[in-house]
Structures are given as structure tokens and as C-alpha cells.
């Protein structure tokens, strides 16, 4: 112990140097994965999973109590919405039948792809105040690869950025670093969905590079588009990202940007699915 005490400054400096080298190595490949990381994350994962679930239960309880007062109003609103949707459903059935008939007349192959999902639990949120990253409890063993999309029941959550043996990290669409191709569903205009993580209120994202004469309006739905192609992974199209709340002209870029309210509630995420090939 005395030896340690006398040499502590040297040890601290050596450690700092060593970790700086590690930073250099990982910064070069932009990928923080390896045997040590894999081992440590998979040992902590089980403990963290239970604490996360407990936290979500408390969160749900608080939400339940606070929502009792607005239940009646919400019920009425939802009933109205069901009526509207039922009408739309009849239309949809008709179009679907027509579409199938026309397709068979033209001998076109059905373009709808079969997607497979791996379901997983969210076990934590990391990256401090700089990044918006979720940790999920599936990894290489289940066939997860970098770049795959992660969805929840309401819509898109984000993209896998790092894969360890039993865990992986998901960059959510709220993060500034996330660049996901999307399109406005009503007009078909393509754009890039990025996070707007620094707002003081609710975190949002926005879709950039919309044309100046865009016909998109608040209330329109933004979905993912499979405009990019990757051999290893499947990029699913038409997964809901959110609804447009505001459209803003970016004069410097001669482009329009639209702010999106994500359809997924990121504070109440427990189960997510990874889209695999």
C-alpha cells in the first residue's frame, strides 16, 4: 500500500495516457466494441434489467394516477377516431382488392417483403447528456447487425449502432447524429430525419431537405423510406416515424424543414423489435 501511495501520481498519469490511446483507437473506427466491453456489459445487464422494469412500473403508476382526470375526455376522442378509421377501413379494403386484381392482370410481382423481427427488452439509457442511446438485451448471438432498424409498436425507435455479444446500442431518432431517410407519406417527398435533441421542452426530430414548394402540411405522417440499399441488412419502408407539427423555411439552404413529433413515447419504452432479414 505504501508503494501505491508514493507512486500514485505516476499511476494516474500512466492510466490517463493509456485511456487516451484507447480513445484514439476507438475514435478511429467509430465503434466501441470488443471482448472486454462485451464481457462487462453482459455481466451488468441482468441487474440493470430488473431495475429498469421496476422504474417503468413506478412510471406507469404515476402516469395512471395523473391520467384519471382526463380519461373521460380521451375516451370520447378515441371513439370519434374509431368511427373515422372504420370508414377508412372500408375504403382500404376496396382499394386492396382492386390493387390485387390489377396486379394479377399486369403480372407484377408482389413487392411487399416479408420481414422478420427479433423482440428484445430495453435495459437502460446511456450516453449522458450528449447522446440519446438505448441499450437492448440482444446482440450478435441473435443475429443483430449494425445499421438495422429498431421499432416499437407505435413506430420507429432508431438504428443499431454497436453490437456486442449479448447487448447492442440503439441510436434513437431524437439524437442529432441519427440520419434516417424518410418521406412525407401524403406527398411522397423524400428527406432526411435528424434529431433535435437540444430543445428545452419535449425532444423532437425534424425532416430536412424538403423542396421549397413542398405541399406537406402540419398533421401529415412521416414514414421511413427504403431509398438506400444495403446488402447485409434490410431497410424497411413505410414504418411510421411521427406527425408533422410545423414547417419552417431554411433560407440559407433553399430547403424546407418540417418538425416532427415522434409517434413513439420514449419515456415509456419496454419492449422493442429489431428488423432483421
Amino acid at each position, binding site marked *: 500500500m505504501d508503494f501505491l501511495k508514493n507512486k500514485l501520481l505516476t499511476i494516474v498519469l500512466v492510466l490517463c495516457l493509456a485511456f487516451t490511446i484507447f480513445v484514439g483507437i476507438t475514435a478511429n473506427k467509430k465503434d466501441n466494441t*470488443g471482448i472486454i466491453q462485451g464481457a462487462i456489459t453482459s455481466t451488468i445487464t441482468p441487474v440493470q*434489467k430488473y431495475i429498469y422494469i421496476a422504474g417503468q412500473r413506478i412510471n406507469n403508476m404515476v402516469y395512471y394516477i395523473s391520467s384519471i382526470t382526463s380519461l373521460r375526455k380521451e375516451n370520447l376522442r378515441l371513439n370519434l377516431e374509431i368511427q373515422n378509421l372504420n370508414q377508412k377501413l372500408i375504403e382500404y379494403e376496396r382499394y386492396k382488392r382492386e390493387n390485387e386484381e390489377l396486379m394479377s392482370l399486369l403480372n407484377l410481382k408482389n413487392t411487399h417483403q416479408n420481414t422478420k423481427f427479433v423482440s428484445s427488452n430495453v435495459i*437502460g439509457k446511456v450516453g449522458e447528456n450528449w447522446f440519446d442511446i438505448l441499450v437492448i438485451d440482444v446482440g450478435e448471438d441473435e443475429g443483430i447487425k449494425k445499421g438495422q432498424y429498431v421499432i416499437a409498436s407505435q413506430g420507429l425507435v432508431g438504428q443499431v449502432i454497436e453490437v456486442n455479444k449479448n447487448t447492442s446500442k440503439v441510436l434513437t431518432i431524437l439524437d442529432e447524429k441519427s440520419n434516417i431517410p424518410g418521406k412525407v407519406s401524403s406527398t411522397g417527398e423524400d428527406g432526411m430525419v435528424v434529431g433535435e435533441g437540444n430543445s428545452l421542452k419535449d425532444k423532437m426530430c425534424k425532416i430536412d431537405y424538403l423542396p421549397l414548394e413542398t405541399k406537406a402540411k402540419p398533421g401529415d405522417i412521416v414514414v421511413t423510406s427504403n431509398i438506400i440499399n444495403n446488402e447485409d441488412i434490410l431497410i424497411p419502408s413505410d414504418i411510421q416515424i411521427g406527425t408533422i407539427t410545423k414547417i419552417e423555411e431554411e433560407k440559407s439552404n433553399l430547403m424546407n424543414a418540417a418538425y416532427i413529433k415522434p409517434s413513439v413515447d420514449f419515456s415509456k419504452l419496454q419492449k422493442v423489435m429489431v428488423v432483421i432479414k
Partner: protein
Amino acid sequence: MKKYAYIIFIALLIIAFQQALVSQINLFGVTVDIVFVFIISFALLRNEIESVFLALFCGVIRDCFFPFLFGINSIVYIISAYILSQVQKRIFKNSLIIPVFFTFVFTIFKIIFYFSYFFIASIKFNFRLHVFQLFILEPFYNSLVSLFLYRFTKNICSKDIMSEQWKF
């Protein structure tokens, strides 16, 4: 050795709490870092070897969960723990102002450090938009939490298992 096992156990618990629970709670888009506050409180109460050991242990685990880079947390934690354990020998610390003040100062130091390393690693941030949240809110929240966490750490350190053994 029992003492170090105890420190490791507490550290694991605090890290799990930070990553599963505390990071969910965010006020105005900023979350508290209780691991960092715990390391500062610990460094103010214990000797330098124990605090550097705790900082190293917490740092490596936090780094494994950190995206893109490995090592930033460890460097920040070790340097803070070492400097504080040197400072704490020379000051009178029988007041709650001390942990609050040091948490505030070292959180700002941490943010500058992170930003410079991200800059070197070419991970670009729009610094101008982050200034308010990072430089005002995070140090403020952390120092508020340190009021409670310092007492908690004091309780932990007063256990029998943590007592110093005299050598003659």
C-alpha cells in the same frame, strides 16, 4: 480486501441505478450524473488510493456502455478523484457547502473535457445550442443531488467494514 469488495458492490449498484433509472428522469432535457457525484463525495471522504480505485472501476464500466469512444469517462473520473483527494487533506470540510461547490466546479471541468475529446475524435456538436443546458443546468442539478448523496456516502463510509486499520 473486504473493503474493496464492498466498494465494488456499492459502485455496481450506483451504476445500474444511473443507467436504468436516473437517466430516464430528465428536466429540460438534462439528466443528473449520480456516478460522478458519488465519486466526488467519496474522494472528499476517503484516502487517495481508494478514491482512484473507485474512479477507475466506475470509469471502465461506464465506458463500456458509452457509444463510439472508450476511455473518456475513465480519464475524467480518475483525474477528478486524484485532484480532490489531494485537495481534501488541506481543507476543513465540516460543511455541506464543500461537496456542493466541488461538484459544481468539477462538472464544468467534465463538460469542457468531454467536449474537447469529442472535438479531437471528430464527433461534431453544435456547441452554441448546448451551452445553456450543459454549463448551467447540469452543474446545478449535480450540486443539488450532491447534498443528499454526500450524506449517503458518509453513511457508507462510517460502516465497520470501511474502517482504517492501524499499522505499527
